[in-house]
């Protein structure tokens, strides 16, 4: 075999270089979009698209217009917690990232977000002066008294403020008032206790030819919170102080036995087949919109779907019913969640990021977002016309839950995603009545405890035992 020398002409080499240059110009990195010259450009990753994204864009536009130093760019991301995780691990994060509150434990414990107290110590005074002159708000800081207690808690993990609440939700009992009237029930008297809920559900359920035509109430619709029923019986899932799973507590067992009473009453196969005909959340075929289910546990954002696909639907909402012995109308029980805005570790412009983060916390911006998202306010004192301007006519129920001392967040542990996955995997076992609830919960408890122990062991190995 002979070796042949190849020739490359200067023209070919220049052509290749030219093509590479053209490719770089077309596909290479972009400038800071339409940012006016001289501004510090910061990127903000958030999970919202559509109407919800537009609402945040309006806040950003207001900020960008209100000063001439910083320019915020909005990027909607799917699976934002995972993308945030990768970008922080790769040391190339955006300036701001919107995380769900339940992601905070992992990000705070691993120092993946900058504690806001640190940013306040460094930039708080300067920004407060700017805010006073620019927005007429004297000495603006993140203060406990601005927020309801649950909202303030959702911003923290282990005493560290990892982010601020951009929007929040509280889950309530939503019902179709027309179905109530149809069943001879008073639509202005939703159930207050589990016992009343069972009675209403029975009257609201319509069976025809051995099949379910309308379910009065279904635990598994929308099926997003398979783990929370024990809270309505006075239970909890996690003891934070002892870092112990409590899935098999007496209250939880009672709750899931109650859940099992529905397939026992109406037939597992019948209910499962009936449920498989439901459409997706964001569609007119969604169970409560299509009239297949008369009442559900849901968030205030359900109203956005109602307005879109069934405007004019006569809905009502109330705090979710609880066991008789723990009923207290002044202290409703409900899940609270929050979308938080955090400044990730490695943020390229922490001062500017913190400034925008504070801007989102001006009451008028918080309320504007809450109204546009059809969510309750995290503010301790909502503006007088908040409820009037709000698209959800039952927003007072959500606000009350958001301020209740018995509101509960998702268990605050890094092991939560795995803990929740156990519930999601095993809920069918209970729903299909394959095993008694107590046995299934004991299994969930054991496995969840193992995940929690791993998290604790890993934390202690890295940072030492909690004091």
């Amino acid at each position: 075999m002979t070796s042949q020398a190849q020739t490359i002409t200067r023209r070919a080499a220049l052509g290749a270089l030219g093509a590479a240059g053209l490719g770089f110009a077309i596909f290479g990195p972009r400038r800071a979009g339409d940012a006016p010259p001289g501004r510090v450009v910061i990127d903000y990753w958030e999970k919202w698209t559509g109407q919800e994204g537009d609402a945040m864009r309006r806040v950003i536009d207001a900020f960008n217009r209100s000063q001439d130093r910083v320019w915020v760019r909005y990027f909607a991301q799917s699976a934002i917690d995972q993308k945030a995780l990768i970008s922080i691990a790769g040391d190339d994060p955006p300036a701001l990232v919107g995380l769900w509150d339940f992601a905070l434990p992992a990000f705070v414990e691993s120092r993946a977000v900058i504690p806001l107290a640190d940013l306040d110590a460094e930039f708080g005074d300067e920004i407060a002066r700017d805010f006073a002159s620019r927005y007429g708000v004297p000495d603006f800081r993140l203060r406990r008294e601005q927020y309801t207690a649950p909202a303030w808690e959702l911003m923290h993990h282990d005493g560290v403020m990892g982010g601020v609440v951009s929007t929040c939700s509280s889950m309530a009992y939503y019902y179709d008032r027309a179905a109530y009237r149809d069943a001879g029930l008073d639509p202005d008297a939703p159930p207050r206790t589990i016992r009343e809920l069972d009675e209403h559900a029975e009257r609201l359920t319509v069976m025809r030819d051995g099949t379910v035509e309308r379910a009065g109430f279904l635990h598994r619709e929308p099926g997003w919170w398979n783990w929370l029923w024990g809270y309505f019986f006075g239970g909890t899932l996690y003891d934070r102080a002892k870092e112990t799973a409590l899935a098999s507590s007496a209250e939880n067992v009672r709750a899931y036995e109650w859940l099992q009473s529905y397939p026992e009453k109406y037939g597992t196969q019948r209910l499962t087949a009936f449920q498989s005909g439901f459409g997706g959340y964001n569609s007119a075929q969604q169970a409560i919109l299509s009239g297949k289910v008369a009442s559900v546990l849901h968030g205030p954002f359900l109203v956005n779907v109602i307005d879109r696909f069934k405007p004019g639907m006569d809905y009502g909402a109330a705090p979710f019913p609880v066991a008789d012995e723990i009923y207290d109308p002044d202290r409703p029980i409900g899940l609270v969640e929050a979308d938080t805005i955090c400044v990730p570790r490695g943020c390229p412009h922490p001062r500017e990021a913190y400034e925008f983060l504070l801007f989102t916390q001006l009451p008028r911006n918080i309320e504007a977002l809450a109204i546009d998202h059809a969510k309750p306010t995290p503010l301790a004192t909502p503006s007088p016309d908040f409820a009037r301007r709000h698209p959800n006519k039952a927003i007072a129920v959500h606000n009350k839950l958001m301020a209740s001392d018995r509101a509960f967040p998702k268990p605050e542990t890094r092991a939560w995603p795995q803990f929740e996955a156990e519930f999601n995997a095993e809920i069918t076992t209970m729903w299909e009545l394959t095993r008694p609830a107590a046995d299934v919960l004991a299994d969930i408890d054991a496995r969840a405890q193992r995940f929690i122990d791993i998290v604790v062991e890993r934390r202690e190995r890295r940072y030492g035992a909690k004091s």
Partner: protein
Amino acid sequence: MTRRVPEWMVGLAFVSPWLIGFLAFMALPIGMSLYYSMTQYTMLEPPIWVGMDNYTAMAGDRVFWTVMKNTTIYALVAIPLGTIIAVILAALLSAKVRFQSFFRAAVFVPTIVPLVATAMVWMWLFNGELGLINIALDACFRPINALFGTDLAGPNWLGSAQWVMPALILMSFWTVGQAVVIYIAALKDVPEVLYEAAEIDGIGVVGKFVHVTLPMISPVILFNVIIGIINTWQIFAVPYIMLGTTGAAKRSGYFYTMYLYDKAFPFGEMGYASALAWVQLMIILALTGLTFVVSKKFVYYRAA
């Protein structure tokens, strides 16, 4: 003016985009994953060396055994049945019939439909109440029920633990078109003289298929089986879209790669996920090796 460049440098320059890409995006991550598999690594914190702990932990991990079982069952049923269906379809599509090209295209087209679209369509087909499959089944069952007083009905395919796996296996046949195309090419390559000789010996259609066609296309079957092993052990997108993160009721549709992904990202255990990935690689290698060994008895390589 020209400059003489040695041939090996030119060759290297031409392969360099692939080589650099391979080193940066394959070789390096593979090496790093081996290291991470022996660490506790959350991605947000520096990895901590734990030796073989992640590997030994798998033995006591119930979900690991669930996904192993699910993936094995899926592979054991979907690969042989898929192969049989693909070979039969290829044989039928090799017959000289009218609209042959149309039928071939019809079998192949599903393989080019995006996975997400496929998953969404099948979710509706499998819908327990409104799905076309159950509507068809109910139409079949109605006379039987009327005649025998039975209560037969279409299953709740994706909603019940028993029916998720059959549904996914059934759905896997949707994409046999790719294998069918390869089998058609292989069938074309079978020398006509062999069929003629078989005919002279009085062998019928089935005999010719078993004694001539199958041995002659056996290397291609082997190739497709190995590709099938690799693909089924990596099944992810379709069940993830159709069944959600925990793979439907009681994790009945939860597969190995889904668990690996969940461990790496939502659960933040990249070290354990890396160990899972290495075990998966070993399993695929072992199965491929085993297939090669077993195939020596069944695969006929024609002399060139």
